[in-house]
């Protein structure tokens, strides 16, 4: 683990609202998009990436510390806000690393500006209707059960979340409310995105945990087939939240992929 990674955390005004943006490291810009359950401030995975790249981790509008835009209606809106943010930050060819729900946002961003990205990484990404199985419905399970469902090994869950505080439950509820505002139906996917992926020119890496109970693997296979330059990788002994459960393995895969020519 990179000890003492120097993260700056600030508010950036985009589309009339304040976005919380954390940033650390230097070199190639890597834009990391968090899960539908929000993100802890500190993660081994983020630190590992920051040891090699300029890593930017925003909180999605309405999630975590970012303000909620009352007008926001779709994940595509979030993708446009992020393209706006990247252009305001002067970043021209970021690599996008989308985790779960963040993967859907990243895929949308890539289809919008197909030449303006270096690499696309989708980790257990939502956003397409799985040909086989359904994406686990948050509305039917408790906050705890849903967060736990993202892990293959509950010991890994405990390492990240400990004895889950009421504050954490409240944060999860706010994230869930945002999901219900912008991703209610169809639930957690776009019917049109698969038809637009063919335009993404950048090399893409699609990574799935071998025990993802939230997004069926068939969705990852669909992404890998639809993206023109995609590769599909499995991480062993991991659930949906590979970044939290197998940070080292994921960081190695992703860093290697972003750095290669």
């Amino acid at each position, binding site marked *: 683990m990179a000890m003492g990674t120097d993260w700056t955390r600030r508010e950036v005004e985009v589309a009339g609202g304040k976005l919380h943006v954390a940033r650390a490291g230097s070199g190639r810009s890597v834009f990391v998009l968090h899960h539908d359950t929000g993100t802890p401030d500190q993660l081994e995975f983020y630190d590992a990436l920051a040891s090699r790249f300029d890593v930017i981790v925003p909180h999605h509008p309405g999630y975590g510390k970012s303000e909620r835009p009352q007008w926001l209606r779709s994940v595509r809106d979030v993708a446009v806000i992020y393209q706006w943010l990247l252009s305001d930050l002067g970043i021209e060819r970021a690599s996008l690393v989308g985790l779960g729900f963040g993967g859907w946002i990243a895929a949308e961003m890539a289809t919008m500006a197909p030449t303006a990205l270096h690499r696309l990484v989708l980790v257990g990404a939502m956003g397409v209707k799985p040909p086989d199985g359904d994406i686990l419905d948050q*509305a*039917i399970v*408790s*906050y705890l059960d849903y967060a736990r469902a993202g892990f293959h090994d509950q010991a890994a869950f405990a390492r990240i979340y400990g004895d889950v505080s009421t504050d954490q*439950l409240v944060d999860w509820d706010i994230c869930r*409310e945002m999901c*219900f*505002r912008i991703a209610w*139906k169809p639930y957690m996917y776009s019917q049109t995105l698969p038809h637009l992926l063919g335009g993404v020119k950048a090399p893409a890496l699609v990574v799935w945990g071998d025990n993802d109970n939230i997004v069926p693997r068939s969705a990852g296979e669909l992404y890998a087939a639809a993206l023109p330059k995609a590769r599909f990788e499995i991480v062993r002994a991991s659930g949906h939240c590979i970044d939290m459960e197998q940070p080292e393995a994921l960081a190695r895969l992703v860093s290697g992929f972003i750095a290669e020519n």
Partner: protein
Amino acid sequence: MHVMYFTEQPMSAYPADIGLEFGATALMFSNKYYDPVAGSRLYNEYLEQYIYAEEMGVEGFMLNEHHNAPFCMQAKCNIFAAILAAVTKKAKIVLLGNPLPLAENPVRLAEELAMIDMISRGRLVSGFVRGGGQEQLANGVSPAYNRERFEEAHDLVVAAWTRQGPFRWEGTHYQHRVVNPWAVPLQKPYPRVWIPGVLSKETIIWAAKQRYPYIALNTSIEATKSIWKLYDEVAREVGYEAGPQNRGYLQQVHVSDSEEKAEKNARQFLWMQGEFTGLAHPVWSNPAGYFSPEFRRQFVEFAVGRAESPRGRPTFEKQVADGRVIYGTPKTVIPKLRHVLEETRPSIYGLWGNDGNVSNEDARTCIRLLGQEVMPAMREYGKELGLTDPFEADAPVHLRYSKDIKQMPQAAE
């Protein structure tokens, strides 16, 4: 005073032991346990009970709506409202209420309600509700926009009823290119709207701002008084003095020809483990975005099993002691109802007479005693206490039709 009869129309013929084992009976409890032969029998028994009730002098019927659950068979309150419009002659048909946010097309709702109003010859009271948490999930509607959809659907229904068509509606949640229903209500300006509720402050405030009577659903006397206090404050802010004509109450009361039988049947009010809407799963009954942010901490803890439901689940004995469940013969029940009337002073009173597995015969006995003895006594006492209902007072249907608005006193310069 307007006194009306209510039943959830319970689907009592379901395997309660399996429901208890499953742990929840709303939303996900499989309808493989729904027996339509029993359903058909029960619907027809309830229908006969309403007709009988009118013969026994009952002056109003309160109807409601719930989905995916055995505790209430009314998957569409407009259906029974339409039936009652045809088979009853005098009783008010009080919908408490149509769950507005569940409507993808409020104009369709406005049409149905106008039809009911005309067919009933102007006996409709068209209450509206937000619908429970499970209702949103059962109907595929996002709970996060529940309150916004409620308010906009209300505005659209009222517009469909009162604005000359054709007109266009480009709203936030509803967009209609041609609103021009060839079904408009008989009652003018439009059927009265009453708003039932339990906890939510926002609903009380909204109802007071519209000048719609608020119907407190079986809340404790103390809680009811707090509701009136808030309603009255808001009423003053918008320029009118609220009173009995703005207040309604729903009371669980079973009346029978013996105390023992009455108690036995009254225990059926807790047939769903004492949950107001059946054995509710904490996650499904309180989806994210549905409850007021002020309750967020309590509800998230309840959702993961760390706390009791903020709605509470007091025992039968406690509810009887609190006066929320009343039972007995007319002789013992009437004084208890008098006490609640004295304390809470509503002009609209719903008597929830029968629930769960109360037999058809006992239900009819209850209806007869309510219609012939209890309700007349309440109406008499209501007169003594000056509990003039909105019909008697010819109260404005909405704030905008008020003739008595006071300007707020300006602070001295």
